[in-house]
């Protein structure tokens, strides 16, 4: 509940009545008139008379009862557009609605499964850190120990693929599905994609066979079915579209259509009933950097304070190495070598996003390998490589062991074959 003042504003000889809303701009008063329209008046020169107070319900933001009984799923809130509301002070969309409000706002959810809700974080996904991943993993472990059928995580879309990759490494051999879900259109809009995404995510978590960490989002622009993407394969590929999430170098894990009660796998998957292997230790001291024409060697030197570095290289996994002594060009390979020599593991991914790293084809790749940069033949995304490095460094410091573990497939992030379609 929030209280709003009913006021009469006299401005330039004209009189307007309505509710006074919080204004983002100090110089203006914002009035909601009885017609529903908002309009702003310059404070200077406007006369305001108070006429009383009105209570308005702006959503409780409270958690639902944490029952934790068998046969139900846990819906965990980690913020984002999928559980957002209008914030009047700034007029912006803000993650403040609790999972309970969300459940209430999604008719039909109760027909799919019983559930309880809990808010872990109320934040924007761009504000997340590796520490947040670790905490989220811990909360999910607690839910698994309660015996839930599956877990749905409400998450902002910006960094959802980082979190999904992190959870994929931290929660191995899962007994139940862990499904991350978000919305590209906020839940306060009639056209929100969140409703169908959440219904499908809940269906996949409660009744689907796939006990992996996945991301469930619109498959196309139609309000139709969703794709469930493997947590280490998925990436946000569009700023605004509903079907922004794609699996990279892999088909999606499955098609999910709650209306027809279908989870149709496209890939081999891990089934339910595993015994959880849990490790949420993580390094917060890893850098993910982009090379580009004109990148300065000094920039690479400035990374010396990190425990690990992932380079999003060009093409097959290249950086300026200047084998032909082109004028102007400065190689950064010696600087990368210096990082490796000082004990900092450096991994390569490609800023092409799609396709496999191959550091054998051109000289730049070969000299990078000679310098100790690894990642040859990895088909991971830069983000997954980064997350994996954070996780590996959480429990392993020895360079050789780090390199070995990085290059071994742990959660579907590296595959040997590049399929044609």
């Amino acid at each position, binding site marked *: 509940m929030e209280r*709003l003042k009913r006021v009469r504003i006299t*401005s*330039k000889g*004209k009189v*307007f009545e309505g*509710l006074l809303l919080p204004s*983002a*701009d100090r110089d*203006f008063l*914002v009035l*909601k*008139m*009885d*017609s*529903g*329209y*908002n*309009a*702003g*008046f*310059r404070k200077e020169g406007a006369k305001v008379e108070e006429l009383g107070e009105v209570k*308005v*319900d*702006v*959503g409780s933001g409270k958690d639902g009862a944490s029952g934790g009984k068998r046969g139900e799923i846990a819906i965990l809130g980690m913020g984002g557009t999928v559980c957002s509301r*209008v914030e*009047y002070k700034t*007029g*912006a*969309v803000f993650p403040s609605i609790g999972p309970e409000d969300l459940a209430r*706002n999604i*008719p039909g959810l109760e027909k799919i499964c019983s559930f309880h809700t809990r808010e872990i974080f109320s934040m924007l996904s761009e504000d997340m850190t590796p520490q947040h991943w670790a905490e989220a993993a811990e909360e999910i472990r607690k839910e698994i120990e309660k015996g839930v059928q599956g877990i749905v995580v409400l998450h902002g879309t910006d960094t959802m693929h980082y979190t999904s990759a992190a959870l994929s490494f931290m929660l191995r051999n899962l007994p139940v599905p862990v499904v991350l879900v978000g919305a590209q*259109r906020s*839940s*306060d*809009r*009639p*056209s*929100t994609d969140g*409703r*169908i995404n959440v219904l499908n995510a809940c269906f996949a978590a409660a009744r689907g066979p796939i006990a992996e960490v996945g991301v469930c989002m619109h498959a*196309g*622009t*139609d*309000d*139709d079915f969703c794709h469930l993407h493997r947590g280490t394969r998925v990436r946000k590929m569009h*700023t*605004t*579209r*509903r079907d922004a999430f794609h699996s990279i170098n892999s088909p999606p894990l499955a098609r999910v259509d709650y209306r027809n009660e279908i989870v149709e796998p496209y890939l081999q998957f891990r089934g339910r009933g595993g015994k959880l292997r849990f490790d949420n230790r993580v390094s917060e001291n890893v850098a993910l950097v982009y090379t580009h024409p004109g990148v300065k060697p000094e920039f690479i030197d400035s990374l010396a304070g990190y425990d690990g570095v992932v380079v999003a290289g060009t093409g097959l996994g290249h950086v300026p190495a200047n084998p032909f002594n082109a004028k102007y060009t400065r190689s950064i390979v010696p600087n990368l070598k210096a990082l490796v020599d000082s004990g900092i593991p450096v991994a390569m991914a490609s800023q092409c996003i799609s396709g496999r790293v191959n550091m054998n084809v051109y000289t730049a790749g070969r000299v990078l390998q000679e310098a100790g940069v690894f990642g040859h033949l990895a088909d991971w995304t830069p983000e997954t490589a980064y997350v994996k490095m954070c996780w590996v460094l959480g429990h392993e410091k020895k360079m050789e062991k780090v390199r070995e573990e990085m290059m071994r497939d742990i959660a579907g992030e590296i595959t040997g074959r590049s399929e044609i379609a």
Partner: protein
Amino acid sequence: MKCGLEIHQRLDTGKLFCRCPSAIAEREPDFRFRRKLRASAGETGEVDFAARVEQEKEKEFHYEGFAESCCLVEADEEPPQEMNPEALRIVLGVAQQLHMEPFEQLHVMRKIVVDGSNTSGFQRTCLVAAGGYLETSRGRVRMSTVAVEEESAGIVSEEAHVKNYRLDRLGIPLIELATEPDIVDAEHCKEVAEKIGLMLRATGKVARGIGTIRQDVNVSTEDGARIEIKGAQELRMIPLYVEKEVLRQERLLGVVAEIRKRLGDSALKPKAVDLTPIFAKTQCGLIRKGIEAGGHVLGIKLEGHAGLLGRELIPGRRYGTELSDYAKSAGVKGIIHSDEDFDKYGISAQEDSAARKGLGAGEEDAYVMVVAQRGMAQRALQMVVERANVRVVPAETRKANPDGTSSYMRPLAGRSRMYPETDIPPIAVGKGMLEEAMAAAGGGLEEKERKLRGMLNPEMAGRMLKSRNLQLFEELVGAGAEPMLAASTLEQTLVEMRREGLELGRPREQLMELFAEYGNGLFVKAAIPEILRGMCRGKRAREAAEGLERIGGAELKRLVKEKGGDFGKIMREYRLRVDAKELKEAIGR
């Protein structure tokens, strides 16, 4: 009678919140997609009942789009961009001409509409100014508000669970002007609509063609409510709509008073009962067909309502019709109620009494039935109860029927249907913006009229002011054309040629060329129709003027000498090549 007008005019500036052109497509679409919508609570926390019912119909919306006129914004796949500055300038210009006071900070709102006509589930709308007036022959008509909003998508067809829309129209700016209820009769209504129409056309930026301008009527009565009647086809019908609406409200208040007398303020909470078995062998075709199609007969008791549903409000519409309209918004075809002539339906007395018994309805009670799929029937009856529990005249948007009556469409958009459009920051309106808008409006209609009277005769000035060619006329004159010649060419010569089936392909460029050559002295006025005929067939002005070149100077003198100075004879033979005034001078000398 007193009523207000609400005028919607499409602007030809390109779309309001994306950079697509305002182009209507006349061909097969380039892409299609499917969506669903759901209603949600507004910022004040109220959920609009009607919006909820609308979405519970679970309709799917199919959209058709065109590559050149629809982008990700229309598809609701990208946030809106800044408001089209030209559209805003035009609206600010019109507002000032109507002596309105623009707000100092404009807020774009989302008006929730979940019928699929907007892919987002809302129409973006922005109140720009309030107050002001229009001078008319019957005194001042006060202006209420001016807003700028997005045009909705055009509906193509509707099936049971699917509505089909086209996206080319979606997002075209609409200026919405509303007057206070100061209009006194039919003639006055016409005058107001024409004056405002003229003012809008004078901006030179209004869209033309069918559907680009719409007039709605606002009626409010003292004890009743504000009603907006949409879709009146002709202005002269408007007084009839007003008259019938006033009567409807008056009678409705009578019904409300009677309900209060019988029930006090207690709300009806009837339970829907499945009456299908009672009608297993019915002679009623309507019910039988409904059941055969897999439907159910659901009924509710309306306590203490006996006789009220049959009460006539206006000829052809009873209180039951009002309830029926609400039921229809849930997707059913209509209702059957106990104040109707059951013989006509083929409902037997036994069926009637069995239904009454099943619903527990006594003599003082009325009952309502619907035949439809169970869920739809339930929602329809829920709508009936919601409406029956409104013990005032509800504020509504109604649809104009051809006979002068109107039917319920949806509740009047109110606070609970309006959200702020959080993707667009508020727009501060400064003095500079207002001055610029006024300058772009060319000083407005009055100023335009004054200027036209200064360069044309009064008859032509009046005609030009109302003409669709006004903007082109101003451009031609601006480029140096003689005003009277430009006006008569636009308003007479080209009209005559159209009757001959001739039309200029690129009127602006071609007329510019014509008047430039005329200014160079290539031909005389009298040759213009003939030259235009050639230009209509694709010739350049010079080509079309071959053989029609003006005879002047030494050549004319020679001609005068040759013909013995006979004015009449020369004019008869060389009418298209000689200027009369010039000839007179040559002879006189």
